[in-house]
């Protein structure tokens, strides 16, 4: 089946999200749509899937014009979609999620699952998936949950599969597995629209690449183009993917962690016996597959974890036992893993988010009263310094794009007197332009003589920024290696293999 979009236009008020977009997808083809956050990729796909109606333009399936008013229309013509945020019910089993919305019942209304079970197992076998139909979704790893989503689309005869940022939530291994799955689907005749801004993956898997910028198709690119070329097309200006890094000039030890143990409330160790040192003017990256204790380690450094043992010294001051507030004010800038959950208060204004940490200090506070004027003045300065694109500092922070949200977090954290920057997944979900900004800023902090502790699951990021790399596996630091180590060796360490 082939899919053709002609002159799709969609505007929201004054904003033209899609401006006359033409696109065609052939049978058995993986067609990547590349674009920054806000370029209009998701709008386009929501139109194809019937979640939005275009202002003008037409959608053709096998040359015939179709109208798609809602997702069920899309499914009927063979278009399936796997959303970035999964649409699964966590407390249901795999099978129950698959039949959801298509349940067949016996005469007295009892669910009949046997047919669906056979179909599911047959389909899974076809694609070589191992899947337990009776496993509960909440107990499955993210990669497997995604496979359930894919199966859910395929079982209802999707011939064109839209994958919206499918790798955003995956570990490097899971990403590799997904790429294999996509190739297998292609060989069986399924067309895939692959939405992403991750260049390595797009290059690895697609047959054709369409680049969208500000709602328009700006180029069709070949997968053999270099990452730099693709990034430049996406952003509309030359992009430097490898930030210029000066030689490190490490100074005195700033953060010394010794025999650190972090337990969960039931006493199970999440981080065990971890020791490392970060010096001034140095980036130590903690690499590893998601879920090997990095998140807990990052939180432990600023005392956000409740059950910790061992020693964390910042410039000779013991941090264990201090409150979060006191730890931060000893001189730590902390960029949490999730901007939306832990970094920002969505309903608060940009200005208010910028003083979450310092609202009790002069000039923002006089006694117990807040000075809105001082808060606003400071916000104006920081919005300029960090190039935060906002209409007004009084707008709620939710109105910002991901990159600008992260800039608000960075602006807040870096404006205290800081000895150490702890950044956890600082570029997750950001577009190329914002990633560039964050990377430059992190290196600028390093060059200004601060110690940087970077947590990242992205190998590209780790190798681009780090001076030394510590690999975490199962709560332990497996090895601390020099940044010149090969990608293969790092991959092995991340899988828990130590030579």
């Amino acid at each position: 089946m082939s899919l053709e979009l002609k002159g799709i236009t969609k505007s929201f008020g004054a904003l033209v999200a899609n401006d006359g977009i033409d696109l065609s997808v052939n049978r058995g083809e993986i067609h990547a749509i590349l674009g920054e956050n806000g370029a209009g990729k998701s709008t386009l796909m929501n139109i194809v899937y019937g979640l939005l109606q275009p202002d003008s333009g037409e959608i053709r399936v096998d040359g015939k014009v179709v109208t798609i008013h809602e997702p069920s229309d899309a499914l009927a013509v063979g278009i399936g979609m796997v959303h970035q945020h999964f649409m699964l019910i966590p407390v249901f089993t795999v099978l129950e999620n698959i039949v959801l919305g298509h349940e067949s019942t016996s005469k007295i209304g009892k669910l009949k699952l046997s047919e669906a079970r056979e179909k599911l197992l047959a389909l899974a076998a076809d694609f070589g998936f191992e899947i337990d139909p009776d496993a509960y979704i909440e107990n499955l790893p993210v990669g497997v949950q995604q496979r359930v989503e894919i199966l859910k689309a395929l079982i209802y005869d999707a011939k064109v599969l839209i994958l919206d940022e499918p790798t955003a939530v995956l570990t490097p291994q899971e990403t590799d597995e997904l790429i294999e799955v996509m190739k297998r689907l292609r060989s069986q005749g399924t067309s895939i629209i692959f939405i992403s801004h991750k260049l390595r993956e797009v290059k690895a898997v697609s047959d054709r690449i369409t680049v969208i910028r500000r709602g328009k198709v700006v180029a069709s690119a070949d997968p053999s183009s270099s990452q730099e070329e693709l990034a430049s097309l996406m952003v509309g200006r030359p992009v430097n993917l490898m930030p210029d890094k000066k030689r490190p000039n490490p100074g005195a030890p700033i953060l010394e962690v010794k025999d650190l143990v972090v337990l969960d409330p039931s006493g199970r160790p999440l981080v065990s016996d971890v020791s490392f040192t970060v010096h001034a003017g140095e980036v130590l990256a903690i690499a590893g597959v998601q879920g090997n204790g990095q998140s807990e380690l990052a939180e432990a450094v600023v005392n956000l974890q409740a059950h910790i043992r061992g020693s964390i010294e910042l410039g000779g001051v013991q941090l264990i036992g201090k409150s979060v507030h006191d730890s931060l004010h000893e001189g730590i800038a902390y960029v949490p893993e999730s901007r939306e959950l832990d970094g920002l208060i969505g309903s608060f204004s940009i200005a208010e988010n910028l003083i979450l940490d310092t609202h009790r200090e002069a000039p923002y506070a006089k006694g117990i009263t807040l000075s809105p004027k001082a808060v606003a003045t400071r916000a104006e300065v920081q919005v300029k310094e960090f190039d935060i694109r906002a209409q007004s500092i009084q707008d709620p922070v939710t109105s910002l794009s991901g990159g600008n949200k992260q800039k608000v977090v960075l602006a807040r954290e870096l404006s205290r007197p800081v000895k150490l920057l702890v950044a956890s997944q600082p570029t997750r979900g950001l577009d190329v332009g914002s990633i560039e900004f964050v990377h430059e800023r992190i290196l600028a902090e390093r060059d200004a003589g601060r110690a940087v502790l970077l947590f990242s699951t992205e190998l590209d990021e780790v190798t681009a920024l780090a001076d030394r790399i510590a690999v975490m596996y199962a709560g332990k630091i497996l090895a601390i290696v020099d940044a010149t180590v090969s990608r293969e060796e790092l991959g092995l360490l991340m899988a828990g293999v130590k030579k």
Partner: protein
Amino acid sequence: MKKFWNRIAGTALLPALSFLLAFVISGLFIALSDAKVLKEASHPLKFMTTALSTVGNAYLALFQGSIFDPNLAHGHTVWQGFYPLSETIVTATPLILTGLAVALAFQSGLFNIGAQGQFIFGAIGASYVGFHFHFSPVLHVFLALGAAIALSALYGGFVGLLKARTGAHEVIVTIMLNYIAGFFILWILKTTTFLRPRRIDPIAPEVNPSAQLPHLAGANFRLHAGILIALLAAYFVWWLLNRTTIGFQFRAVGANAAAAKTAGISVSRVTIATMALCGALAGLGGGVHVLGSEHALTADIGGSFGFDAITVALLGRAKPTGTVLAALLFGALRTGGRTMQSNTTTPLDIVLVIQALIVLFIAAPTLVRFIFRVKNLKTKDAMTAKGWNG
């Protein structure tokens, strides 16, 4: 200026439309539950006119009983016609304070069901200082209210402490503490300290005149200085939330506790402080009620001030100004309802129907939007969404 009006329209439109809708539907109930109207069911025209006049009379009585009654105003005493308004304000005063106690908790992401118990403890504290001691007038009022605030702040703060230290959910704890307060007052009124001499029914001695709140409009009206205290408290809550570092922390924890904690705000300290302050507000309500209108502690002093407070705070969208207006509305419905019951054939219970419908429509903005075909009805900061996992 235009922006200002847009904002007012944005926040006040939903309550106003809900209000209108509730009265229309309650009108149907009044007409259809009236024997006189039903008797005319076979004559459509007569049926309509009787129904309209019944509903009209009921709402007129509601108005006369809550705002202005021309029957009381004749000749040179037009003034006297406002007696119902004074009653409305007297009823609304404790409701404003308990409503604030619930609203402030909402702002910190807590659900304070315990205003009832906090109110009772405030009433006990104010009553004891009021009848047991003798001070000069103004000082005595301040001391009695101070006792009300202190006692109920401890009572409320205890809930916060439990939540912060052990994770006990404030909804469960406050519900249980309401029972404790209800039985505690029954018991304490039997002790020799509290039981009025030569009485066997549970009533405490009358508070000394020096501890009673002064009347504001002469001895003919029950209107007392409590309303000024309540309005001051509402202003205080607004100022606290919007102009202080403490309020900033309250709102931050209420909006996203994880982010607040990550930025170094102590969530447990905010929880304890919020619950103590909420206790103090509800307790002040109890104190004002005893010193202003009741003058003596009785077993049912709490009425349903603490429970209605939840509705009032929801109706007021957990904002101080909204809470004051909602409390005044409830005060008016309650006092007006009594007149309606005695002057017409419409029962007092219809007031409960009106109250329930208003809240129902506020909680279902999509319905109101559909009925009136309005767009952009502001629904964003509805506080009801948080609930149990908050």
